[in-house]
């Protein structure tokens, strides 16, 4: 009884909540990456750069609208659209000609794009740190379970996460384009053989995937400093999550993000000095027992 009490103590519960809010951002970014990987077979290294561009655009939008609540809501709309436009141009200009090439080629192209986007961001926004304020509605914190403080913005993230998951589920399972995309992921030739223009389906999927990266960038912006190099941090974690969840499986990305986010926040509780190790150890454990990922891979 005492042990159960300890496991479900206030500390643990609040740590789980913090971990879940982190999961929202990880899931948003890695589900987009997984979608592109599954349907288009592109290991998109530039995904992190689009996340960074999303965050920087959120900064500009938020400043343009006075930095208050309006600025935040507007950035939530505008920044993903800007990222979507950039990714659409990239898809039409480069990727649509390269789908039949080897993965290595695509990897190189996305790597080149990530470098170009990085310099692009430095040219436009400069090298200094930027900061998007937490919108006034979500400033401050509440005392969770009468105990530890929990930032209001993280509550917002907790609500946004499931909403994104539901929208994504509807998109994939209830729309025609989603069904075609899923079919194309399994057998591309068959889909084009029945007379569907796969090229445009791919363009739409690519844009949706990248839009999620941009959205992740907007959501994370109020909690961190918007800076060059934030692309590298997220791309590592997103790749790990995608691999852990099963390549190309969006729900795998959700599972992976949950494991990663919770392992991190609970790990800190167990052994703060080596808190870094836990999410990565979780990845290793998962891959040891399920080398192809938690859920079925589309590869």
């Amino acid at each position: 009884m005492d042990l159960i009490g300890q496991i479900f103590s206030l500390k643990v519960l609040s740590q789980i909540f913090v971990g879940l809010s982190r999961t929202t951002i990880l899931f948003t970014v890695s589900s987009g990456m997984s979608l592109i990987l599954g349907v288009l077979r592109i290991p998109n290294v530039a995904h992190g750069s689009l996340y960074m561009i999303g965050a920087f655009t959120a900064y500009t939008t938020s400043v343009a609208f006075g930095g208050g609540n309006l600025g935040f809501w507007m950035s939530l709309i505008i920044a993903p659209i800007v990222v979507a436009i950039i990714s659409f141009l990239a898809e039409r200009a480069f990727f649509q000609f390269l789908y039949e090439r080897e993965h290595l080629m695509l990897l190189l192209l996305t790597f080149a794009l990530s470098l170009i986007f990085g310099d692009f961001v430095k040219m436009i926004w400069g090298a200094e740190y930027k900061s998007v304020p937490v919108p006034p509605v979500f400033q401050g914190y509440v005392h969770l379970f009468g105990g530890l403080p929990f930032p209001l913005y993280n509550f917002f993230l907790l609500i946004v996460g499931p909403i994104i998951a539901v929208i994504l589920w509807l998109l994939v399972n209830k729309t025609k384009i989603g069904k075609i995309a899923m079919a194309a992921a399994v057998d591309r030739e068959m889909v084009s053989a029945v007379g569907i223009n796969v090229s445009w389906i791919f363009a739409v999927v690519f844009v949706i995937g990248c839009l999620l990266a941009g959205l992740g960038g907007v959501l994370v912006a109020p909690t961190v400093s918007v800076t060059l190099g934030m692309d590298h941090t997220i791309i590592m974690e997103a790749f790990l999550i995608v691999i852990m969840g099963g390549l190309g499986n969006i729900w795998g990305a959700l599972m992976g993000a949950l494991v990663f986010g919770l392992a991190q926040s609970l790990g800190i509780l167990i052994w703060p000095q080596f808190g870094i190790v836990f999410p990565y150890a979780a990845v290793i454990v998962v891959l040891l027992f399920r080398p192809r990922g938690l859920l079925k891979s589309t590869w």
Partner: protein
Amino acid sequence: MKKLVLFSFILLFLSLLFFTVSDSYAQKTIKVGIVDTYTGPPSTFTIDVRDGFEMAIKKINEKGGVLGRKIEYTTRDEKFKPDIGLAMAKELVLKEKADILMGTINSATALAVSDFAKKEKIPFFVTFAKSDKIVVDKGHRYVFNMNENTMMAGRAAGYALGKKPYTKYWIAGDDYEYGHSIANNVWENIQKYNPKAVLTGQTWWKVGEADFTPYITQILAAKPDFLIVATGGSGMVNFQKAAKATGLAQKIPFYQHTATEHSVLKPQGLNAPEGVYGTSNYFFYYPDTPANRAFVEEFKKTYKREPRVGALYGYMTAMFIAEGYKKAGSLDKEKFINALEGMALDSPVGKLELRACDHQLVLPIFFGKTKKDPNYDFLIAGDIEVIQGKDYMPTCDEVRKIRTYKR
């Protein structure tokens, strides 16, 4: 065809002319080769160093340069990679014939270049690398440190914090050399001045960690009296934002090395947490002296922004190079180094001495607390306590002792 031949001859002639001109021009200059990171996050700091340096040498050259020569500089972007940085330093010395090497924010590069400078007998001025190994353990005749290092920053903070009545301390930081070195030095010095201080726990996260909320809730649960936060780079802003969002800033006082610096506070505007302790070598608003005001005004006029700490390092490096040659009276490198040893020059923060024993610039450290000010739309440092070099720097004897032990 004839036209083409003629054209190429003209081109050849012109290029020869150009090369001879630049060659004879090169003989009349003192060439400084700068290796530094100009891409990615570190460029936030390095661009200020370069601009401060450029501003100073423009002024020096306008007055006719030194020993009848103008000072000229070229930069190389090492991309935060020690192997590239070392190759570039070699290229600058062997091909570009640089007389002096300068730069780098990367401690590993600084140590590699320092080693090379020692072999080639080229003076090397370190402008932003923070490892204390550069002039303490691995110092030599040809390396100079123009900025504070982790040992200095940590000791200065420990000196100031040790006088405060806190007893239960907690350490948290970026899990790399910089973080551990700052934290260890702060903690050692707190213990020296406050024997009652105890360390109740530690938290370390990976470099570049974006979300500190899970770490902070855990620290809050432990309820220490005071928190030492050893973050660097973008982690500074990230931590302050998380500290504000979780209410840590109001509940537990904490110290972060460069918390009060402009590069950390300006991006956050008025949303930065108040009452955070920090240390820094420079503020554009402090000390409020004619020398600093003139420096700020000149920098603002040229670069359209306030100078930050890097600008002071770059500016003073140029000043020491110029005055060193003037005092030496010749371009001989050994005489130049002899002239620099123990030299003291006026700076925006008062008189600064380049110590003879370890070639470390003796800088005052400003210990203060973030606060709002009606004149600015960002937070600044308040309650500033000036800690002079003698109070916190390792003495020459200490440096010698460390060098003999570690060699």
